[in-house]
């Protein structure tokens, strides 16, 4: 497909700019020579981007069982209400009394998340999960600094998302990995061995990236706390447990959640998301400012966070994303929140038992919202990548592949609660069919995809000689 630059034609335009109503004052600033942007008509813009949209695949196009990403249906009412001009036109520095609607949404969302997570305070400022994680680790660092304790080590499970170790080192902590057991849980002996006065905390994803709930989690919290260390929960997989158990009751000190996973806001091809962070009382003084507070019947921005780590971004977070998550919680209510987890876990287990007869499943246990298969034992050297690419030909988005790293050739499947049995059955049948193809016609699978706008792309060439721009 041509780029927007190739369809540009000198003299065309998609917008008309009104004549100035005020005098055209001489411009005293040094100006650029040319402005090399496309010249296209309005219909060119629409056709170009509509054509691009048809070369893209979202949840609305079909099943998207991308593990650890919780690709649930994005309710349309959330999109509609978030576009009310009463929300979208508000300036962040407007006097508080003029933006009471916005502040109330933020205040109540903070309260809802506190209740769901069992935490004492929640900040909505972080723009994404990884951003929330960074916030959380900074809070841990600031907490120990304020106590005059020199703890320079953070522990991370070997099954963790890559963002965990990256956040740890961004905060200047030394990283140590804790092993997983053959049951896919954190190795308690390894944990105990690694405890020392240097350990600031442990980052744990629970349910973990294998889709398993760590049965020792209460013990883990005890071990950490006994050592004076803190327990961080990567709440990326919260969709499995909302309304079932509160992370705060488990003993976590800090948690981040992803509104774009658990709370149904769309992923937008990779953003905007939102990654609120919840903390227990002893960490509340370290949250980024401002928070939204309620003073009598008025909602206000509270900048008086005594030992705040500072700001993580300008203004108050991805407000428009918060509107959608707020609308979602209001729509489904307490009973709906619990039903989400129940059905997400039901769906995952259903797919697990159906697929484990045909694909290798390392941890054969009741899973939570997701489970991890692998390409072990696939005939004719058909790999996880081949299976994923073949799924594209059948109109499915593939699961997450090659993650977590502790399972070789991992295929991580997360169906989530918004998928029907019929959809899952059709995916299961397709997976079984691919297994048969791998046996009888492996070349077909290895060459896949064959029906997409492009076939497999040359990533080596792209990395060796990066072309990151259309030439002038």
């Amino acid at each position: 497909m041509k780029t927007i630059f190739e369809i540009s034609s000198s003299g065309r335009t998609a917008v008309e700019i009104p004549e100035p109503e005020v005098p055209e004052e001489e411009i005293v600033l040094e100006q650029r020579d040319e402005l090399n942007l496309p010249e296209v008509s309005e219909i060119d813009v629409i056709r170009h981007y509509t054509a691009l949209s048809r070369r893209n695949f979202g949840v609305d196009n079909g099943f998207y069982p991308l593990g650890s990403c919780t690709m649930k249906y994005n309710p349309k009412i959330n999109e509609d209400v978030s576009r009310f001009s009463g929300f979208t036109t508000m300036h962040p520095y407007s006097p508080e009394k003029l933006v009471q609607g916005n502040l109330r949404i933020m205040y109540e969302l903070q309260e809802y998340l506190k209740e769901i997570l069992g935490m004492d305070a929640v900040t909505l400022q972080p723009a994404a999960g990884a951003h929330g994680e960074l916030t959380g680790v900074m809070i841990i660092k600031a907490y120990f600094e304020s106590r005059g304790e020199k703890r320079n080590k953070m522990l991370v499970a070997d099954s963790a998302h890559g963002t965990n170790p990256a956040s740890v080192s961004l905060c200047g902590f030394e990283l140590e990995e804790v092993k997983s057991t053959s049951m896919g849980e954190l190795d308690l002996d390894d944990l105990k061995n690694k405890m020392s006065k240097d350990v600031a905390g442990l980052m744990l994803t629970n349910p973990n990236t294998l889709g398993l709930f760590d049965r020792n989690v209460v013990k883990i919290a005890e071990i950490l706390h006994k050592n004076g260390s803190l327990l961080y929960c990567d709440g990326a997989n919260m969709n499995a447990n909302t309304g079932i158990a509160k992370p705060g009751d488990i003993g976590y000190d800090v948690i981040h959640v992803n509104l774009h996973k658990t709370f149904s806001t769309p992923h937008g091809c990779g953003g905007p998301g939102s990654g609120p962070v919840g903390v227990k009382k002893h960490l509340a003084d370290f949250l980024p400012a401002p928070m939204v507070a309620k003073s009598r019947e008025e909602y206000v921005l509270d900048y008086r966070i005594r030992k705040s780590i500072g700001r993580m971004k300008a203004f108050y977070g991805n407000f428009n994303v918060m509107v959608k998550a707020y609308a979602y919680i209001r729509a489904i209510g307490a009973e709906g929140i619990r039903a989400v987890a129940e059905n997400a876990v039901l769906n995952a287990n259903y797919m697990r038992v159906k697929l484990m007869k045909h694909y290798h499943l390392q941890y054969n246990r009741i899973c939570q919202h997701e489970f991890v298969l692998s390409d072990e034992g696939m005939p004719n050297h058909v790999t996880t990548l081949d299976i994923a690419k073949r799924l594209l030909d059948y109109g499915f988005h593939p699961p997450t592949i090659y993650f977590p790293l502790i399972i070789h050739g991992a295929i991580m499947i997360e169906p989530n609660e918004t998928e029907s049995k019929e959809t899952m059955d059709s995916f299961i049948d397709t997976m079984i069919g691919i297994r048969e193809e791998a046996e009888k016609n492996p070349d077909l699978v290895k060459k896949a995809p064959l029906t997409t706008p492009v076939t497999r792309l040359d990533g080596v060439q792209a990395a060796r000689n990066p072309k990151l721009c259309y030439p002038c």
Partner: protein
Amino acid sequence: MNFIPNTAEQRRDMLKDIGVSEIKDLFKDIPESIRLKTPLKLPKGMSELELRRAMSELADKNKQLVSFQGAGAYSHFIPAVVNHIISRSEFYTAYTPYQPELSQGILQAIFEYQTMICRLTGMAVANASMYDGASALAETAIICKTRTKRNELIISKTIHPEYRETVRTYANANSMKVVEVDFEEGKTDMKKLKSLINENTAGVMIQSPNFFGMVEDVKAIGNIAHEKNSVFVVCVNEATSLALLNPPGDLGADIVVGEGQSFGNAVNFGGPYLGIMAVKSDFVRQIPGRLVGETTDTEGRKGYLLTLQAREQHIRREKATSNICSNEALCALAAGVYLAATGKKLRDIAKLNYYNSHYLYNELKKHEKILFGNDFFNEFVVKINGLDECFEKAVKSGIIPGVKLERFYPELKDCLLVCATETATKKQLDKLLEVLG
């Protein structure tokens, strides 16, 4: 309301297939002691009809007035095509394009966005966007450190106060020292800068147009930074200015960051926005975030994919240059559509900003104290005795006259930052003059 399609009968069948008798059995790994015994204390769910009503009541609690507020969040005209395109659910309901065969649409759109940003900033490489301008600027602290193996940042006090705070947060966590350089006549004080810069200076950060709207002498500051081999970072908070002013890349910037909200994204009470980041070609290994590259498929056709991923956290883990995982792709898409639609006319839009704000400036100058010179883009500082009272009066007549500066700069008591974009009509401008006069 819920969004769960399976019927009670289907759920029973599925439980049977799994080999358990009830849903509770699926949660037996969760210790009994921590399982919730009572329902969450949340409001009851509601129907779509009720929800729409509730949300519109909340929206109505906000007051939509005529606004002359800028300060990092700018109200601009957004062509209708922008919202139509970003409302296509093939885009907004998709995930990060990890499967390029199924994501050519967003990949090409981002590739085009990267190209437009390079052309606007005069830089060689732009990434697929960051969270926002402030966090993008903060991330450059780490680039400066990695590049120079030095530990000190010099940051101009004319940079947006919340951006400076964000830089400090990131720098603190990274044990870097941040030194602020004061301003003189609304611009970075170059004499002071010269006295502060030294062999430990990893980077020099400025913003232009700066927080007061003033256009800095980018080139001269760049020379000062480069004399000490420090990385020179230029932040552009009001991206529309790029269409009119000399590109920072032509003025010596090593890294250009900024806020792209002005390109087709609504003010939205502060977010979501998109952070712009563009670098000189030899910084490509240090740039954080996603990069889309062009390549070919097995049939020799052109295609796009995420490239240079081995820099990123999911591969390098603790050795990654940043922990950033997502970007603000949909906001970058909006920016791309906006820039395609406005094209070369963006310069005319920028000029309207200039004319409207300078009209206000010239008129106000007749009676009020204007703080700085006329070399600003679309916002400027005016001192009004009894500002609080005047502000209230303006609000009562339906106008938010600007952003009060005292909370950010205690020395600027009674000072107001006034911004006029292309959206202001002469009638509105005159009304503002009337209430301020």
